[in-house]
């Protein structure tokens, strides 16, 4: 297991997350895909921290987790409110604004 393996794994996770954002309709799932992307970054950070022998990267991962938690709070609130109005969490239904 070299550094590259972790990095490639992280990149794959990031890509899976990004593709998920593109293909999934449910807002919650889309959001979870974004979280997946963030976590792939965490993996990257930690890997690099390990490679360079500093702790900066690991600390940054904590930062990211906190930020992600805050994002979840805001995001779920927004998704919730639209869900209550529309009775649907599909991102494709929110399509009044266009062109």
């Amino acid at each position, binding site marked *: 297991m070299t550094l590259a393996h972790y990095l490639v794994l992280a990149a794959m996770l990031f890509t899976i997350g*990004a593709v998920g*954002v*593109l*293909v999934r*309709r449910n807002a919650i799932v*889309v959001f979870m895909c974004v979280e997946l992307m963030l976590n792939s970054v965490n993996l990257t950070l930690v890997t690099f921290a390990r490679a360079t022998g500093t702790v900066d990267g690991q600390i940054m991962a904590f930062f990211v987790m906190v930020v992600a938690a805050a994002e979840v709070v805001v995001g779920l609130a927004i998704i919730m409110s639209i869900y209550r109005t529309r009775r649907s969490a599909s*991102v*494709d239904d*929110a*399509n*009044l*604004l*266009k*062109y």
Partner: protein
Amino acid sequence: MDTVPADGLLSASWLLIALPLAGAAVLLLGGRRTDRWGHLLGTATVAIAFVIALACAFSLDDRQVAVHLFTFIDTGSLEVDAGLLFDPLSAVFALLITGVGALIHVYSIGYMAHDPRRRRFFAYLNLFVAAMLLLVLGDNYVALYVGWEGVGLASYLLIAFWHERPAAATAAKKAFIMNRVGDVGLALAIFVMFAQLGTVTYEGVFGSVGLLAGGTVTAIGLLLLLGACGKSGQFPLQAWLPDAMEGPTPVSALIHAATMVTAGVYLIARSAPIYDLTETARTVVLVVGAVTLMIGAIAGCAYDDIKKVLAYSTVSQIGYMFLAVGLGPVGYAAAIAHLLTHGFFKAGLFLGAGSVMHAMDDQVDMRRFGGLARKLPITFVTFGLGYLALIGFPFLSGYWTKDAIIEAALDRGGVSGWVLGGVAVLGAGLTAFYMTRLMLMTFFGRARWAPSAPGRPAPHPHESPSVMTVPMVVLSVGSVAAGFLLVQVFPLDEWLAPVFGEPHEAEHVIAPAVVATVVTAVMVLGVLAAWLFVGRREVPVVAPERVSVVTRAARKALYADAINESLFMRPGQWLTRALVWVDNRGVDGAVNGLAAGLGGSSSRLGRAQTGFVRTYAMGMLGGAVLVAGALLAVTAG
């Protein structure tokens, strides 16, 4: 031929131009306040100008006098002065213009008496006289050009004087446009002179024209000729002159017979030092003169409109003058002499025609005339004298001056001399024919009078008032005597010697007596032919339809209008329409198309903004890939 500064009376020669100009200004700006005395003022200014011109001419003594007024344009190396040149040539013209002009002003008092716009008529006439005097008195080509277009304007205004008549309005426009074609030639000639010689004064140009290359001189000569053709109704720009007869008859007499249309002759005569250097240009002048002479004479034979016949006669007579000036030094004086006598008799003829029209409810169709000799005795006599002078009846004006031209043409010798002389002689015969035809149809035979319009009474011819007949009488005296006076008593060629050089005895190819005899014989033949074809028979009231090809062509003035139309007017209209289309659809269309294209692409691009989050995310991902790819490409490359 040195020019001296003006002194004494001559330094006031600018009054010649200023007086009529002031008259025009007063009458035009004064409005209706001047209605009551406007015609008198208009006549007075020209009459006074005549007196001044006479006095100036007498104090001239073979000199050439320059009058500097003010600097017109001075920039770079171009300097144009508002300056006058009073020399024998311009003196002759000034006398003709003011003299005949004054008479015609007097005549117009009566002729236009019932026209509500008489004041304006006199204003325009005064404007014309002023412009014409500037044309002949200016000491440089630009001043001449200013006068040149000024008379064009006056001519336009006067032809269109009865502008409610579409024919008059169209004729005026046609005259102006065809003149402008000629003006382009004149303008270009001035440009060439400035480019090559750096000056536009007569003195400067004539002084150094000898330094120019032959081709350049010929070019100048031809360009000047183009201008002359436009103004003088010469081939190929002759078509406007007959149409110009839509103007009131005094206008036809003054502008389109006696003075303005002879400006072309003046131009060429004035530019004699240029033409003296270019055989080619002179030959072209000769050809133009000969061709026009024949066109005018042929067309004159076929028309039934009394004024148009006279107009074609004018075209033809000016052809003689062009022929004369084209002959070079031997012909200049002859041309000017014929110009003067022609001024008298043709003005007289037109005034007579006006008197006839006056009597006949302004009709012009000679087929509706006939037997007017007894009703209009004074008109008949004066008109008759003018007629005899024109056809070259022995010892009347035309005889002296036209014969001189024919002689000079024949004296040229060789084939060209024979051809030109022959044409001139033939023209004299034709002149006799059409003028006799005119006389017979108008004054003799049965009265064929008819109402001028349905519902109007048939005309009751009556002699014109004396204010009209007196000028006619004076002019007829001139028609009779001018030729003799100018050739025999006060030889014009000697008077003009300071300008054209001393007259020299020509080597006669044919003895003058023989020529005179032949010409007279041909004239008599023409008269007889007219009597045979017209006088013996009843004149049909409606022109016969079944006529020969020649007659048909002559009636169409040898298809000049048709040619102009199909060669210029229709293609021009077509081109205009095409260009309007191109401009709207092509040039402007490109701009509007660009706008529409932007709008269209805006809508199409706008479709990408689907409103779906996932599409947007896709776009961002794509963008990210592109950005990363671009950066990597830059670093790699």
